[in-house]
Each structure stands twice: as C-alpha cells, then as structure tokens.
C-alpha cells in the first residue's frame, strides 16, 4: 500500500493516473497532514532540482579527442569501404574461376556416356598441366598470399568484435 509520501511524490512527478491525481489534489486541499507534507516535499523537490553538475578539467574534451586520435579510431560505419569488399570478392571469384579451368582441363571422361559427343580442343591450344602449376613458385606465392589475407581479415574481424564488446 502506498504511503502518503509515496502518493505525493507520484503526484508531484505526474506519474499517477488522472483519477488518482484528482483524488490527491482534493486531499491536499482538505487534509492538513497532506497539505503540510506536500509543501515539504515541494521544497525538497526544488532543492533536489537545484543540484549542481560537476565540471571536468578544462582539457577534458581535448583529452578525449586526443585519445581518439592516438588510437586512430574511426566510427565503425566509415571503416566499411565498399571498394575493399568488392576487390576481395573479385579476387576470390577469379581464384575460383582459375581453379575451375585447371580442373576441367585435366578431367578425363571415360566410358560411353558421351560417346556420341566428340569434343576436341584446337590443336593450337595448349593447356598447362596441373602438376606443373601446383609446383610453380607462382602458385606457392599465391597460397602464401591467401593465408596472409585470411589472417589479416580474421585479425580485423576479431578487433571489431572486441571493440563492440568493450563498448
């Protein structure tokens, strides 16, 4: 059950229903106890509202901006660069296409499934053999680059996740 004080605070804050509001207003007018308490709480309410805010040091905002600059922070939205995403996508699409071409060129279909089909590549076209490609320095450096790229992306993902968690 609400005490007089609780009812009056609700009345002062305006958090009670219109019916309660009306009832309390009537009580303040007629009941001396309510009237006295209401006056006391009103004074207290004004006093609480007059509290002063603390002031940080003069260099506060400068220090905040310096901390942001020092960490080279950027709001997350501006870190998402569409060009980077597109170039990564293009890189992977090209890699997949290159692998598909190599694989298809080395596939030998036996049996009479396509016996009626006689596909011959032009004699002038010489496809590289898979073994020579996979042994080449170019392929090795391609894989090393892939690994570095994967590590870099994982690292930036984890950093963003950590930043979001801290916030």
């Amino acid at each position: 059950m609400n005490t007089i004080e609780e009812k009056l605070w609700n009345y002062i804050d305006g958090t009670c229903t219109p019916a309660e509001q009306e009832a309390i207003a009537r009580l303040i007018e007629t009941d001396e106890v309510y009237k006295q308490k209401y006056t006391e709480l009103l004074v207290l309410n004004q006093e609480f509202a007059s509290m002063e805010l603390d002031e940080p040091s003069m260099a506060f905002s400068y220090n905040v901006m310096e901390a942001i600059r020092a960490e080279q922070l950027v709001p997350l939205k501006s870190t998402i660069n569409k060009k980077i995403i597109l170039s990564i996508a293009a890189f992977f699409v090209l890699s997949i296409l290159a692998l598909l071409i190599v694989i298809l060129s080395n596939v030998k279909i036996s049996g009479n499934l396509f016996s009626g089909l006689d596909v011959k590549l032009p004699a002038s076209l010489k496809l590289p053999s898979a073994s020579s490609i996979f042994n080449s320095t170019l392929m090795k450096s391609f894989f090393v680059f892939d690994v570095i790229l994967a590590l870099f992306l994982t690292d930036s993902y984890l950093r963003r996740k950590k930043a979001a968690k801290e916030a």
Partner: protein
Amino acid sequence: MQSKLSDIELIEQTLAGNQFAYADLVKRHQRFVFTLAMRFAKGREDAEEIAQDCFVKAYRSLASFQGQSKFSTWLYSIVYTTAMTFLRKKRVDTDSIDDEGTFVQVESHESAYDTNNVENKSRSYYLNQAIEQLLPDDATIITMFYKGEQSLEEIAQTMGIETNTVKVKLFRARQRLKEKLERNLKHEVKELI
C-alpha cells in the same frame, strides 16, 4: 562556443568523418557524464578516466546508435555500464575497509569540518555532500531524474531494469537523500554550538 546543431546532426557529421562535430558532442554532454562518473568514482581523477573512456567507447560504436532513443540515454547507458565495471574492478582490487573510496569520503567530511562555517556554505554544498554519501545507484537515479532530463522509462533503459523498479528506487533514494541532508545540517549546527 557550442554548436547549435542537434545531437543527431552532429552524429551524422561525425560519421561522415568530421571529428570536430564529435568534439562538440563531447562538450555538450561532458558535465553530465562527468557528474555521473563522480557518483561512482568519488574522486576526480578516476571520474575523468571513466568519463573519457565512455566518450571513446561511444565514438567507436557511434554507427550502432539507431536513433530510436535520445543520444543522451544511449550515452548514459554506456556511462552506467563503464562505471559499474569500474566499481566491480575496484572492489576486486581493494576488497578491504581501507578502500580508496571510503578514504576519499572520510577526507571530504574532514575538510568540511575544517572550513566549519555554515554561513559560507550554500544549500547546494550540503546537497552535493549528501549525494556523495548515497550509494552509487541511488545517486545515479537522482542525478539522471533531476539533471539528465530523463524520464523513468529512459532511466530504466539506461540501467537495464523495469520502470516500476526505477520508480521504487527513486522514492527510496529521495528518502535516503532527505535523511542524509537533514543529518548533515544537524551535525553542522551542533559543531557551531
């Protein structure tokens, strides 16, 4: 001079890469954020550290602010979480009666008695002194309600509790603050006699 732009406009400019806009946001909210931090830290240095940390965190995740609530409500929830973490860490670090916060509080009492002159002390001085003696949660609710222009619903959102709980907590916090205020004033008068 502070910017006349709204919080939302300043946020948009910040997200577009204008760091000065964020500096304006900081200037606009720094007093309240610092005061909230003071409710937990009880020391200016720690409070500045908490407040600074809050603004850096807010900057980092500014893009995640959807604008569904006021920026201040969103910012205060960061302050509340950061300050609570600070308090928990401090409790683990010290975990004794010689806690730095206790010391600061006692020290502030003593300094009050040193300059024992009721006439020279305004009512706001006693009010601030009484607020300092409240529990951080009570002091935070009182501050947010009276100075943060926050409704009970917004305070509930900031503190992650129900609106009715905030209402009850606010009522109790006011009672405790009233008691502390009366006790401090009575004590001062006694000291003079």
